[in-house]
């Protein structure tokens, strides 16, 4: 590899050609502050508009200061990162940015997690000269079902725009206006609801300030918990347990399942259940649907469309409803685990306990913001009573626990309640990219071949590559499997499906890069992809430690079918556990 040698703050370093100055500095232990720049290395995601100009450094022989985030090292370069000139420039630019930013940090939802706040602290900003005559760029606030936009706090880092357009290819957000009034917003500065937004929340996940935050549903949950007439049931998604600990200072990748259950119980939930149970149920329904379509397809039935696409990710569902309405009969009709759980809780479980569904409140804790929108969809309610009443994010749960004076780290480990709290390892791995399809393969293999699956770890389906494919041998039948995470990658596979080029039998899609572990409702990763990797590893660890690792072996699932649903894909199962899709793009109104 070709290398170059340069000097940074009088220290010499040799780096591969093409390395940026900021990265070379880091190798020397020099931490140049970066604000707008963000890189998720393992996912191949980088935001580098070089717009904030905080990271400027002095390069000998150069007329002006150089942004270290994009300036590449050259042979013999002499760089200084903390001269008076650099420090003065950095401070002055920071003062500029702060002069156009609200100062309501105390009551900002991002307080404590705000990168701008951290930077102000790091640079030791104590006053903003001229603030009294400084105009602020202000915009209309927008609250959608999942996301709140407060552009007064936008610093034009463009991370959200990059995620929405380049990574997710959703195209809901764009830089708008020019100069001082520029910001990132949907078309016509309308609410997100009228845009193609899928509520994947990746914009929220990367926003360094309080410009993009989630809609907070904890007050509603608190009200329900305080109401003695309500039975409040909570379900927790698989990816939550692998990330919640970070909010309490634990290492990324620490599994906190037991403590989380204890905390939820301490918060006053009547039943603490697991979405993983519903994930197992999803596998039963989706796996059966896959096998059914596959068998029909193999026997020459032209109406059986393949590949089958997973449907547990609400961001993904929103995406194809908007961009691929003509493919809406391709994805599985199985509801997502969150909604399956709600439907079962408010029918089967409520019946078992003799509770009227109107007196039951189902709360979900999700790594996801699209789930907030999903549970509000009209088709997931009975007579106006939603199957899932409130969905809160991992971050909201953490805040809730802190508000309730619970010393999380010293809680004892507790177990989920039954019957909707038992799950297999297959349900757990739903939380990371490749997990749903791996879980489906484990069950489908045994159902299809009638043989016992010897090797449970399908490592070929794992990893962080954006688009992956593998062929699994179903006793002679070669099943082609595709996996995509991130909607931009999903689009690639979908375009192939649309044009008839796709050779896959089944495709798993998760809207967020990394899958649910990288969801828009998770603790903020601040651009560190090793955090996402640690979470994924934790998920696979939990799977490995489970005594049961195949969904169809979950005794409570078996009981549910026996007692209530009959067979997978039975009429009752269809009624309760399946859904249909809509075209979401609005038609252009034509004057007759």
């Amino acid at each position, binding site marked *: 590899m070709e290398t170059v040698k340069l000097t940074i703050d009088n220290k010499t370093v040799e780096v591969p050609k093409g390395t940026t100055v900021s990265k070379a500095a880091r190798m020397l232990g020099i931490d140049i502050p970066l604000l707008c720049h963000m890189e998720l290395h393992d996912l191949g995601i980088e935001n580098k508009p*070089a717009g904030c*100009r905080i990271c400027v450094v002095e390069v000998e022989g150069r007329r*002006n200061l150089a942004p270290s985030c994009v300036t590449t090292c050259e042979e013999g370069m002499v760089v200084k990162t903390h001269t008076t000139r650099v420090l003065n420039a950095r401070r002055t*630019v920071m003062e*500029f940015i702060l002069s156009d930013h609200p100062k309501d940090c105390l009551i900002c939802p991002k307080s404590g997690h705000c990168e701008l706040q951290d930077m102000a602290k790091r640079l030791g900003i104590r006053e903003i000269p001229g603030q009294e005559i400084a105009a602020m760029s202000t915009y209309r606030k927008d609250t959608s079902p999942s996301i709140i936009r407060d552009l007064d706090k936008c610093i*034009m880092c463009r991370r959200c725009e990059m995620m929405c357009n380049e990574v997710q290819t959703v195209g809901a957000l764009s830089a708008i206006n020019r*100069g*001082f009034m520029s910001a990132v917003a949907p078309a016509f500065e309308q609410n997100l609801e009228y845009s193609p937004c899928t509520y994947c929340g990746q914009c929220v996940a990367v926003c360094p300030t309080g410009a993009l935050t989630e809609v907070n549903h904890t007050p509603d949950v608190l009200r329900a918990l305080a109401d003695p007439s309500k039975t409040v049931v909570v379900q927790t998604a698989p990816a939550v347990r692998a990330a919640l600990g970070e909010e309490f200072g634990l290492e990324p990748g620490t599994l906190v399942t037991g403590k989380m259950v204890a905390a939820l119980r301490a918060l006053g939930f009547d039943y603490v259940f697991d979405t993983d149970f519903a994930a197992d149920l999803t596998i039963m329904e989706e796996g059966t649907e896959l096998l059914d379509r596959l068998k029909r397809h193999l026997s020459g039935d032209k109406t059986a469309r393949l590949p089958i696409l997973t449907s547990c990710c609400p961001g993904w569902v929103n995406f194809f409803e908007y961009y691929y309405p003509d493919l809406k009969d391709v994805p599985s009709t199985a509801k997502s685990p969150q909604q399956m759980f709600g439907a079962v809780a408010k029918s089967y479980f409520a019946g078992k306990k003799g509770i009227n569904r109107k007196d039951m409140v189902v709360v979900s804790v999700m790594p996801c913001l699209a789930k907030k929108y999903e549970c509000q969809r009209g088709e997931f309610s009975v007579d106006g009573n939603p199957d899932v009443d409130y969905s809160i994010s991992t971050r909201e749960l953490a805040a809730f626990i802190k508000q309730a004076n619970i010393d999380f780290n010293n809680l004892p480990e507790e177990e989920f309640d039954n019957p909707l709290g038992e799950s297999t390892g297959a349900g757990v791995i739903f939380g990371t990219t490749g997990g749903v399809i791996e879980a489906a393969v484990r069950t489908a293999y045994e159902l299809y071949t009638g043989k016992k699956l010897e090797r449970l770890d399908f490592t070929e389906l794992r990893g962080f590559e954006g688009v992956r494919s593998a062929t699994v041998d179903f006793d002679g039948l070669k099943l082609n499997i595709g996996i995509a995470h991130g909607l931009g990658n999903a689009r690639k596979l979908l375009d192939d499906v649309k044009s008839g080029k796709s050779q896959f039998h089944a495709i798993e899609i998760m809207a967020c890069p990394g899958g649910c572990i990288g969801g828009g409702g998770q603790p903020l990763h601040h651009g560190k992809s090793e955090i996402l990797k640690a979470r994924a590893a934790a998920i696979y660890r939990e799977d490995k430690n489970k005594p049961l690792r195949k969904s169809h072996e979950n005794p409570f699932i078996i009981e549910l079918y026996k007692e209530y649903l009959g067979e997978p894909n039975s009429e009752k199962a269809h009624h309760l556990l399946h859904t249909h899709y809509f075209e979401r793009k609005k038609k252009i109104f034509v004057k007759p």
Partner: protein
Amino acid sequence: MSEKIIKLMVCSGKNCSRKQGDDITDALKLELEAVSLENKVQVVRTACFGLCNAGPVVKVWPEGTIYTGVSPDDAAEIVNEHILKGRKVERLLYTDPATGKKIPDEKSLTSLKKQLRIVLRNCGITDPENVEDAIAHGAYLALAKVLTEMQPEDAIKIIKDSGLRGRGGGGFPTGLKWEIARKNQSDEKYVVCNADEGDPGAFMDRSVLEGDPHAVLEAMAICGYCIGSSNGLIYIRAEYPLAVQRLKIAITQAREYGLLGKNIIGTGFDFDIEIRYGAGAFVCGEETALIHSMEGLRGEPTVKPPYPAQSGFRGKPTNVNNVETFACVSPIILKGADWFSSIGTQKSKGTKVFALAGKVNNVGLIEVPMGTTLREVIFEIGGGLPKDKKFKAVQTGGPSGGCLTEKHLDTPIDFDNLVAAGSMMGSGGMIVMDEVDCMVAVAKYYLDFTVEESCGKCAPCRIGNKRLHELLEHISKGHGTRADLDRLRNMSVVIKDTSLCGLGQSSPNPVLSTLDNFMDEYIAHVDAKKCPAGKCRDLMQYLIVKENCVGCTACARVCPVNAISGERKEPHLINQSVCIKCGACYEKCKFDAIIIQ
């Protein structure tokens, strides 16, 4: 080609009002037909002659008689007297503001004596809508020479040796730019002409495109041959409909004559040109922003490298030069590198076109050799300041340039001297200011422009310039302090030092140069709360001088807020708490009884 031997050239620059130009043209044609001379004398609409103060202008070619203030009614006299009888129409001759004398022909024009026209060589001489006329004046000779006699490397060497530097602002050596673009291998390359002239007060590119479009087309084709490209793009302001129209005509005609398109003049070289429109964004003058704009995106600049020569339009090597730079190419090829490099200063060769405007007698486009002093330009070519007002400053380089003063008047103009003096060449705007111009207000005016034109991508330009503008506003209202002046300077330095593109890197120049050269004026604003030029409304008072006031009541009647009281034939008084400083009384008073303080 054309058999017509005499040309009547009617200026169709914007200053001469197109409508009137059309009427004059029609009238002249009618009169010529009446005396059956329509085949001997040609009436041509041409670009600006640079005599905008005296328009509409008609020039008789080749002798160079200039008639000014012409109306359609004068057509008969011009044809009957001048064309038929060979007698000049005395009353329409141009009066030189410098001498007050009638000028028989353009050779006697003081303002033209110091000029040297390379870029504008054909403007006002050829018919821009007639390729034959252009060819008759030497167009496409250089292209033919390059295609038939030279290897691309040879032509690049000539351009390099000539010392030609980019006229768009930065002053990057053109030959070197071409060489880099040539060396970057690619299946496709692009030649882009930047005609997105956005400086307020500069219109040289428009004049070249309107007056001599073939000069640009030819140079682009030469550039295409040199760098190995067959695709040319002209990025032009949509606000220049006449230039667009003439370019379209020129491109069509050049294609018809085999000078553009496939197999140019039978040499096997292909080159064609498309027009792309700007949509009103000053920042698109920056080449990376321009390229994004041509790709249908917001015109935001990106960090260089990669340079357009490496990865430009559609990710392909792209060479961007502006109109004036291209207009220099053919003469260099024809007359040689030595000829061009003999003109100008050591590091800035050739000529430069300036748009001379503001408080100066001769407003218009001028072209002078590099190294001409500001004094020569303003006082000899420009004819000095009107109403014998005192020269105060000259602002060069457009909105991002600086204000230069008396002490810079004898500085030879070139790229490096202007930068050293705290300004820049820019695209060649040159605005003269006199004693009643307030430099704080001038700095504020330019910042207002930059704030509006900042693309918003980088924080120092997006927010910093806004803060500069606010602080200047604060000072001009009389609320400033000495500490604010230090802040002005610090913010300016940081914005220059940290901004992403040339816009932000130069936007504080008007502030810094006025701080450097007119500190006393700033101090007057912050210490005494006075505006010495009497421009800053909040810092001035209109006062009635008792001794001069005759009590005519004119001022009281014109005052919109009834702030003036007084009996008829008695001295009047302005109630300062009511006065809104509109200046109506000042304009009205015939007795110099109202003063500004």
